[in-house]
């Protein structure tokens, strides 16, 4: 209860603000419509209308929930393409699109955080890498991927790499950087005495790494991983656009956007946020376990 109550409170507060925002932002449209039709509107009219608009500026939460429900459960259970009738996930359901995005995200996250850790280890252990890699890692992040993503995909396609991998590469491209920054800091976090102790044992670099640097980088690593998995998701979604945006939450968002379907955009957005929340939460869980085993959780 002590865990649920605060979350519940915050969620309720957000919902309240959301509803208020929906009324406030959608009211203009209601008034415009009435003005075009030459009618008077009262506040209750506005209240009623702003909750049910087809193309609201800000859809009301229940509209989004309804859309989420329709595009997951209802779609899968009852539609012609749903899993019940066709045996495969419907390409109109958020479950299908979420899965496409999730798989690219996870693959990208694995590649990205792995690469990030490897680079950080290199930077901490090798002066040449310290001097030359970091500035370019930074520069790489300042290149707007959405601009080069299509080129990456064109190039990868022309060498025969298609499917999940191009998206995962873009997602890795975004996620490796937070890991590098955090890990470099973390691997350098041991204090002098802790390092000196290792020196007196004449520990090899590998040993210093495994027994000192790695454990003391854990808090930094986990903070970075949380940021990285979120970045991976963004990367996967961005990567979905230039593949012709045919599947995945990114495609859903974009398609919703072409046709001005705000409710659909918000539903996909919420789905993406839920995915992100779950993944960040999962990393938090692993973090708590790891730190507890390391005696760091007090």
């Amino acid at each position: 209860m002590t865990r649920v109550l605060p979350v519940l409170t915050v969620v309720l507060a957000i919902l309240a603000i959301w509803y208020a925002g929906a009324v406030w932002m959608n009211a203009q449209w209601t008034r415009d419509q009435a003005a075009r039709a030459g009618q008077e509107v009262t506040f209750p009219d506005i209240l009623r209308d702003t909750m049910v608009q087809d193309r609201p500026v800000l859809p009301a939460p229940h509209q989004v929930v309804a859309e989420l429900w329709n595009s997951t459960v209802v779609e899968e259970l009852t539609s012609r393409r749903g899993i019940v009738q066709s045996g495969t996930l419907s390409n109109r359901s958020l479950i299908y699109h979420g899965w496409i995005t999730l798989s690219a995200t996870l693959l990208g996250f694995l590649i990205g955080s792995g690469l990030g850790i490897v680079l950080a280890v290199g930077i901490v252990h090798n002066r040449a890498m310290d001097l030359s890699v970091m500035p370019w890692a930074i520069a790489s992040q300042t290149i707007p991927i959405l601009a080069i993503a299509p080129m990456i995909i064109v190039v990868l396609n022309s060498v025969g790499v298609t499917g999940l991998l191009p998206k995962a590469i873009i997602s890795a491209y975004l996620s490796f950087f937070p890991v590098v920054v955090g890990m470099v800091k973390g691997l350098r976090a041991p204090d002098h005495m802790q390092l000196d102790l290792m020196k007196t044992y004449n520990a090899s670099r590998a040993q210093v790494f495994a027994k000192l640097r790695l454990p003391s980088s854990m808090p930094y690593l986990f903070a970075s991983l949380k940021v990285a998995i979120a970045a991976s998701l963004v990367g996967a979604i961005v990567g979905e656009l230039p593949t012709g945006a045919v599947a995945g939450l990114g495609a859903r968002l974009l398609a919703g956007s072409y046709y001005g379907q705000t409710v659909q955009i918000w539903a996909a957005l919420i789905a993406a946020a839920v995915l992100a929340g779950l993944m960040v939460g999962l990393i938090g869980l692993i973090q708590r376990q790891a730190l507890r085993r390391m005696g760091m959780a007090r």
Partner: protein
Amino acid sequence: MAPPVIEAHALGLTFQTNDGPVHALKDVNLTIGKGEFVSFIGPSGCGKTTFLRAVAALEHPTEGTLTVNGMTPDAARQARAYGYVFQAAGLYPWRTIAGNIRLPLEIMGFDRAEQAARVERVLELVELEGFGNKFPWQLSGGMQQRASIARALAFDADILLMDEPFGALDEIVRDHLNEQLLQLWARTGKTIGFVTHSIPEAVYLSTKIVVMSPRPGRITDVIESPLPRERPLDIRDTPQFIEVAHRVREGLRAGHGHD
């Protein structure tokens, strides 16, 4: 006399800080033979820790020469010539006490069974049986210090460098550990460098007492102890002992500048 294990010639070490250089050591000459037990005593800030760290190749002298076992300190470190007990316990917070003690053993490649046996033995030596599974922050200050001593004793280095190892211990445990250390030393013939603030402790343990004074850190007196190697605790009441202690106190006082 045995061949020198540690030899310092005109040793100097200067730290550069934000407001000017600090001469932590200046013109230090000292020879320590194999099997000697040398104590360093002196006011705080006189360079005791710095000297020990230089021997351990944790600091690099800015002047003079320093050899350990006839090699540079770095080479000696690479040969794993010594165990070091730091002034602060410096246990790794993510390892249990046993894990901390096991650390050097893992690094030096002892096998599992041997590791466990040694951890068991040194825990007993410092009277921490039963605390192996606790984390450092669950121990009192003195217990942490003992754990760090145990860690340095766990592998058998020929040279032991100990920086105020018994500072946070009460008299009784201290006496006990003093005796244990003497026994260990007699049994193994290790060379020991030992920083302490207790004059009786220095006299009781050492074959040689180095008195230092600060600003700049230098050696003001080196006292060879006339006491026999075999030392029961009550040797501390003999006139010989009191005589040496007196000399040390005088040396200290001179370095201090207080009346």
